C-alpha cells in the first residue's frame, strides 16, 4: 500500500499523525509495506463466523457488513421497529433513530479475505434524534489472509436523547482495524460507550467526544486484553465545550507476552465551560516482562470552575492477592485468571446483563496470561 492509499484509508496525513500515532508508527509502517487488494463485500462467510454473531437476543435487529459492505443475506431487520431508519449508500450507512430503541440494535462488521490480503473502508453514522437508543457494535474476522479495515463514524446525540454503544471487538491475529468515532452530544443528552477489545494484529481506536451544549454527559468504559504480538492503540479525547458538562472515563488494559497497548486519555475543558466535571481513570496490567503499555493521561483546563481528576497506573498482578486465592486452594493458573478477569470486569460493571455475560464468557476464552 503506498503512502497516499494509507492516508486515504486513515483519513489523515502522515504529518497529522506524527504525534498522536507515535507509539504505533512501526506497526503502521509494517502494514504500509504490505500489498492490500480491495476487499470483496461478497466474500462468503463461514458457518463458524455466522454462529458467533447469531445472538438470540438480537434476532430481527441485526445489521451485518462484510468488508464494509452491507450484506442483505446475513442481515435480519424484521424486528427493527419503526423508530429506526436505515439508509445504505454503498459503504456509507446511516442509522437515524427517533424515539429510541426498545431493544439493542446489533451492528456486525466482518473482515474476511478471500485468498490474498485485502483492505476495506466504510462509514457508519448514528443519529439519535430523540429517546434512548442502544447499539451493540461487533467486530469479527476470519483467520487466514490479512485484512485491514477502516470504519469511520459520526455519532450525534440530540438534546435530551441518550445513545449507548457497546463495542465488542474479537479479532484473530490476521485482522487490523482502524476505528474512528466522532461524537457530538447536545444539551442534556447522554452518550455512553463501552469497549471490549480482544485480539487483532493492529487495532487503533480514536474516540473523540464533544460535549457541545449545556449539561451534556458522556461515560466511557473500556478494556483491552492483548497477547502474542497484538498491538492496540486507544485514543480517547473528550472535549467539554459548554457549561455543566460531565465526563467519566474508566478504562482497563492488560498485556501479556510481547503485546503492546497504548491508552491515551485526553480531556479538554474549553474556556467558558464552567461547572464541568471531568473524571478519567485508567489502570493497566502487565503480565510479562516483554509486554508494554503506555498510559498517557492528559488534562487541559481553560475554564475557571471545574471539577476534574485523572490518573493512570501501570502495574503487575498483585502477589498478595494471588497468594490469598492460592492459600484457599485455588490453583495458581486459575487464581491468575480470576484476578485478571476481575481486573477487566471492573470496566463493564453495571453493563446490560446479557452483554456482561457475553463479555465474561469471552474474557474466560480470550484472557491472556491464564496459563502462565
Amino acid at each position, binding site marked *: 500500500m503506498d503512502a497516499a492509499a494509507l492516508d486515504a484509508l486513515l483519513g489523515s496525513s502522515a504529518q497529522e499523525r506524527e504525534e498522536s500515532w507515535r507509539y504505533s508508527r512501526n506497526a503502521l509502517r509494517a502494514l504500509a509495506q504490505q500489498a492490500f487488494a480491495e476487499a470483496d463485500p461478497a466474500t462468503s462467510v463461514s458457518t463458524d463466523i455466522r454462529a458467533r454473531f447469531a445472538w438470540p437476543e438480537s434476532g430481527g435487529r441485526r445489521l451485518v457488513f462484510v468488508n464494509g459492505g452491507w450484506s442483505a443475506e446475513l442481515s435480519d431487520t424484521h424486528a427493527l421497529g419503526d423508530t429506526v431508519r436505515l439508509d445504505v449508500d454503498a459503504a456509507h450507512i446511516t442509522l437515524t433513530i427517533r424515539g429510541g430503541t426498545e431493544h439493542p440494535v446489533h451492528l456486525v462488521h466482518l473482515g474476511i479475505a478471500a485468498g490474498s490480503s485485502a483492505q476495506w473502508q466504510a462509514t457508519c453514522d448514528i443519529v439519535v434524534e430523540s429517546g434512548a437508543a442502544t447499539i451493540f457494535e461487533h467486530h469479527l474476522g476470519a483467520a487466514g489472509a490479512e485484512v485491514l479495515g477502516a470504519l469511520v463514524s459520526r455519532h450525534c446525540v440530540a438534546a435530551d436523547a441518550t445513545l449507548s454503544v457497546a463495542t465488542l471487538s474479537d479479532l484473530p491475529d490476521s485482522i487490523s482495524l482502524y476505528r474512528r468515532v466522532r461524537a457530538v452530544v447536545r444539551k442534556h443528552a447522554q452518550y455512553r460507550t463501552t469497549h471490549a477489545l480482544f485480539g487483532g494484529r493492529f487495532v487503533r481506536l480514536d474516540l473523540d467526544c464533544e460535549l457541545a451544549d449545556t449539561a451534556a454527559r458522556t461515560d466511557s468504559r473500556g478494556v483491552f486484553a492483548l497477547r502474542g504480538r497484538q498491538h492496540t492503540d486507544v485514543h480517547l479525547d473528550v472535549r467539554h465545550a459548554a457549561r455543566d458538562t460531565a465526563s467519566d472515563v474508566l478504562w482497563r488494559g492488560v498485556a501479556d507476552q510481547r503485546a503492546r497497548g497504548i491508552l491515551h486519555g485526553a480531556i479538554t475543558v474549553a474556556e467558558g465551560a464552567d461547572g464541568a466535571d471531568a473524571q478519567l481513570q485508567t489502570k493497566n496490567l502487565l503480565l510479562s516482562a516483554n509486554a508494554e503499555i503506555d498510559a498517557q493521561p492528559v488534562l487541559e483546563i481553560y475554564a475557571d470552575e471545574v471539577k476534574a481528576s485523572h490518573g493512570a497506573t501501570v502495574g503487575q498482578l*498483585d*502477589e*498478595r*492477592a494471588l*497468594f*490469598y*486465592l*492460592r*492459600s*484457599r*486452594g*485455588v*490453583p*495458581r493458573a*486459575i*487464581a491468575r485468571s*480470576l*484476578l485478571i*478477569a*476481575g*481486573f*477487566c*470486569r*471492573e470496566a463493564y*460493571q453495571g453493563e446490560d446483563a446479557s452483554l456482561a455475560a457475553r463479555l465474561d464468557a469471552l474474557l474466560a476464552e480470550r484472557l491472556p496470561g491464564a496459563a502462565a
Partner: protein
Amino acid sequence: MTMLHIDDLHVRVAGKEILKGLSLAVNAGEVHAIMGPNGAGKSTLGNVLAGREGYEATRGSIVYNGKNLLELAPEERAAEGVFLAFQYPVEIPGVNNTYFLKAALNAQRKHRGEGELDSMQFLKLVRAKLGVLHISDELLHRAVNAGFSGGEKKRNEIFQMALLEPKLAILDETDSGLDIDALRMVADGVNAMRDPARAFVVITHYQRLLDYIVPDFVHVMVDGRIVESGDKSLALKLEEHGYAWIAERRVPDQIGAA
C-alpha cells in the same frame, strides 16, 4: 498422633532471619495459642505454614500429617487441610466472593479425589454455614473483601474456614481490630468447629481472645523462637506481667542451647 511437627525452623524473609530455631508439636484436637511481642515472628510462622513466597526456610523442618509441608505449593497445602486466617485479608475487586469460594472448595475436593459440588449443592452448604456464623448473605454477592469493614473481613475469614473445613487452622491475629461483639462472633465460629480431628494455632497479641477460645497450650514467642510453654494460666501471667517478664527470664545460655 502429631498432626504438625515443626523442628528447629529457621526462616529468612528479605534477607533477614526472622525465625531462629522454632520447634512446635500440635496434635489433632488441640488448640495452641502463640503469644508474643511485636516483631517476634508470629505472623512469619503463619505465612510460612501457608506457603507464602519470599519466606525461605533455611534450616529445620515442618512435617504435617507425615508430609514435608515445605515442599507443597500453597494450594496443595490448602487441599491437604491447612488454612490461614489472614491478619490483613486482601481486597480483590472484580472477583465475586461466592465464585471464588466455589472455585476454592471444588479445587480442594478435586485434589482429594472427591466429586465437585454443583451450584445448588454449594449454595446449600453456604447457607448452612452462614446461619451458624450470623453473617448476612449480602456479603456473598460482593467482591472478595472489597469495601468490607475490618470486622467484616475477619468474619469473612472465619466464614471461609467454616466452609472449607480445614484440619489445621492458623488464625493470625484474627482478634486485632475487633470490637467485643465481633470478637465473640469469631470465637463462636471457632468453638463451633473444635473437633477431635481438627487443630488450631491461634496467634494473638492479647490474652482477651483466649477468654473466648480457651487454649490447651500457650506458647510465648520472642525473637523467632518459643521461649516458654504452658497451659492457659501462662496467658494470664503474661497479661499480668507483660512480655518484659519473659525477656527478663531469658538467660543467654538457654538461647544458645535451644
